[in-house]
């Protein structure tokens, strides 16, 4: 069984090589905002817990395999009949239950934490950005600033950003690994993702949910700027970029790849986003939203017919 030792050392060496090979840190474990930070901490905590489990199993495994191999036992050795042991079986049921309980508490707490506006930023008015996907690009509409970008999004640091996600096509998933985990963008409802950037910089964002031929190219840049630089950029776009006409928007919508674009008005006026499901479900933080969405309520009304089924569904879910 020299082979086995050889195998283990091979695995060990390759893992060490892999780890040392990454001189830049793994993206998910290199957070630049509080949401990604929470997730990175959760991941590291779970890795440590699971490493403990692995070590116990591996020690027992190596012990059993070295001690009880046939070549080490006498030829006339007759293994005993063992039914099992209530005591031992209780232990290896109880300990995993404790581990799972600890992880459950961590999971539920962090899941609530990452769904909400990050701690410490609740009092600030969030920057609302509608992020919608179409084959194969991302449209970012800033309703308050009255600007729209395609395939890049600039945000100020230290201010909560509320991304409202929806799709003009297949389900896509909005993901900026260094700012926080992903969420789906779908055609029949709006989902919300709260992110904050605490460091200036350019971050990779992408669609992570397969959506057809151009999926691999469906990336965008998130540029986190200081509030002053951000305001300057907004002004610049408002003054220099062209208006987004319905015709222009439709042509962008139906072109596969368009590169970056900037406009000094949004598509929200003539192409309303779907209903916001989260307002039915969770009351919480939408004092600002209701004012916001009041503007678009006329557009929403005409969608109401189509959305009837959805409403039924939501009230059902609410009932649970």
């Amino acid at each position, binding site marked *: 069984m020299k082979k086995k030792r050889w195998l283990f050392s091979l695995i060990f060496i390759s893992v060490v090589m892999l780890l040392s090979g990454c001189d830049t840190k793994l993206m998910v474990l290199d957070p630049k905002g509080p949401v990604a930070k929470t997730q990175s901490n959760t991941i590291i905590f779970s890795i440590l817990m699971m490493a403990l489990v*692995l070590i116990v*199993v591996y020690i027992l495994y190596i012990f059993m395999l070295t001690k009880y191999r046939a070549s080490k036992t006498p030829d006339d050795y007759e293994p005993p009949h063992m039914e099992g042991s209530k005591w031992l079986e209780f232990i290896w049921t109880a300990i995993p239950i404790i581990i799972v309980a600890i992880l459950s508490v961590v999971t539920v707490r962090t899941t609530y934490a990452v769904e909400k506006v990050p701690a410490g930023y609740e009092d600030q008015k969030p920057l609302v950005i509608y992020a919608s996907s179409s084959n194969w690009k991302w449209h970012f509409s800033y309703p308050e600033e009255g600007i729209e970008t395609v395939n890049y999004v600039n945000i100020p640091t230290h201010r909560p950003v509320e991304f409202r996600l929806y799709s003009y096509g297949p389900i896509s998933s909005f993901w900026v690994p260094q700012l926080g985990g992903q969420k789906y963008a779908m*055609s029949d409802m709006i989902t919300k993702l709260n992110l904050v950037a605490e460091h200036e910089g350019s971050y990779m964002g992408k669609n992570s949910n397969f959506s057809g031929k151009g999926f691999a190219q469906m990336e965008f840049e998130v540029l986190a700027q200081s509030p002053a630089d951000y305001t300057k950029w907004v002004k610049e776009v408002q003054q220099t970029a062209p208006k987004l006409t319905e015709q222009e928007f439709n042509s962008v919508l139906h072109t596969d790849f368009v590169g970056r674009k900037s406009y000094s008005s949004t598509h929200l006026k003539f192409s309303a986003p779907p209903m916001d499901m989260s307002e039915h479900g969770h009351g919480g933080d939408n004092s600002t939203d209701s004012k916001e969405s009041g503007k678009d309520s006329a557009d929403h009304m005409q969608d109401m017919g189509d959305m009837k089924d959805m409403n039924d569904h939501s009230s059902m879910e609410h009932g649970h």
Partner: protein
Amino acid sequence: MKWDEFFVTGEPMIYAADVSIVLVSLAIVIGLTYFKKWGYLWREWLTTVDHKKIGIMYILSALIMLFRGGVDALLMRAQLATPDSKFLDAQHYNEIFTTHGVIMILFMAMPFVIGMMNVVVPLQIGARDVAFPRLNAVSFWMFFMGAMLFNISFVIGGSPDAGWSAYFPLASLEFSPTVGNNYYSLALQISGIGTLMTGVNFIVTILKMRAPGMKLMRMPMFTWSVLITNVIILFAFPVLTVALALMMFDRVFGSQFFTMANGGMDMLWANLFWVWGHPEVYIVILPAFGIFSDIISTFSKKNLYGYKSMVVSMVAISVLSFLVWAHHFYTMGQGAMVNGFFSITTMAIAVPTGVKIFNWLFTLRKGKISFTSPMLYAMGFIPIFTIGGVTGVMLAMASADYQYHNTMFLVAHFHYVLIPGTVFGVLAGMHYWFPKMFGFRLNERLAKTAFWLIIVGFNVAFMPLFFLGLNGMTRRMYTYSASTGYGPLNMIATIGALILAVGFVVLCYNFFYSFRHSPRNEGGDPWDARTLEWSTPSPVPVYNFAKVPVVHSEDAFWHAKKHNVPLYEEGPYEEIHMPNNSGQPFILGVIMFFLGFFLVFSWFIPAIIAGVGVIIMLAVRSFERDHGYHIPPKEIAATEQKLRGDTV
């Protein structure tokens, strides 16, 4: 449908496939004619209702599909080995990962597992066949024709390209206008119906046909795992049937269940798919657990540790498997409370699974472990599967899953579960029961070489994906740019995949080598094993047991050997009642194939004709009187004399 769209054109690889398909078909036809084997093929295989032969056909089909799915995997790895590779274009890559997933789960893992059930379960419980032998043949031909229908999409009409989970609206007519996803809905439907019938068949077989004295709590662990698996099949597969039917209505008849307009709901598809899809994972893993249990016990020369808790933990897993489906889409925005619930149920599965791991480890304790090829797979399984298990717990944590979802981390996780679990399981089972099926063992030296190549190749291929995932590489991207830095790890993974492929080549070469060189006449029990299937001669006579065995304890055969208790009652042989062969299941399968094929292309008149054909076949069977045949005692005595060289 224009005729120039009927055949897939424009790719040299497709033309090569066309040519090889024609050549192989010709070779088979010429070979069968030259060796005058048409009659043999029809009498002994196409019309058989014998569970052992049906099992062998399942396993053979699974191996062929393993080859197809494996080639898909190698093509993907070749494309991803270097940044900005032009080896495959996006469309081709999308089709390949879709067919890889569908084929590996539904046409490789499922039939391999079901093939093992077919060969082994009736023998393990001391039965002469399954409860409904004819239905069993129908199950096989439905699966086989479904698999063939799916595979011809490659050259006729185009393969599905929306992923194995076929999420809507991507899989709707609007975004996938080719017939590829029609193939998906119909081929899976046809083989899925076959699987559902297998579920019914094996539940009845295990509950009603056990040998006298074999109480439920004396059944071998593999039989237990099969019983529980088939209960899962019975509850999970109808959901798939409904989902696929709705998908077919959407795509072929223009309904709007999952589309973007008119109140269609894409999330409904995702829910239905995973309500079936998650139990499906346990359908392919639980029998593997059963196989490992039997093998670890046999080659430690000990009874299974904690038999009762093994059974209880499998029942617990089967219940929990229906309560976790939403963990496949935590990111759909259903809120922290729903996600919290599904996180906890998912992590709870780690508890019964952990119990099983520790019971296996303690089965080894104070044993006398011999490292045969089946045992090597079982011993490779424990440490690697545990990595798959603990990463599963990590993925179960919703907040963290927002970062793992759709990444290579997830891809690494499920390969770390499915390959050491299911694939090692069925390979272990194949090496273990090979002498039962064919009367000789596979060469141990070659089998061990293949094992080491597979286990090293597997880890080199999939370990890097964990790191790629944490570095932001998503699954299903057909290319990436050099600036992402994903290149080196992808190259390592591709090298691993090649080593893995060499391992499978050695494994298959072993069939030919062993067929020529392995010693025959090793008797019915070459491994000194513990359960009833080893008490009959190898290969097993058509009636399985000349006399029905009488069971006094668990590990009945071991008990009989050690305590010198006879397994069979004294007395002369009695007539054995056996089912007749029938060509109807095969014909029904062929008609179903054409029904599916016509519906794929929306050719309704031929489809109606084929549909009528199906109804006629069902009617013929309903009014048929077939009471089987009897084997006279004299013939049994002669067969047993020949096989054993003695009388019982």
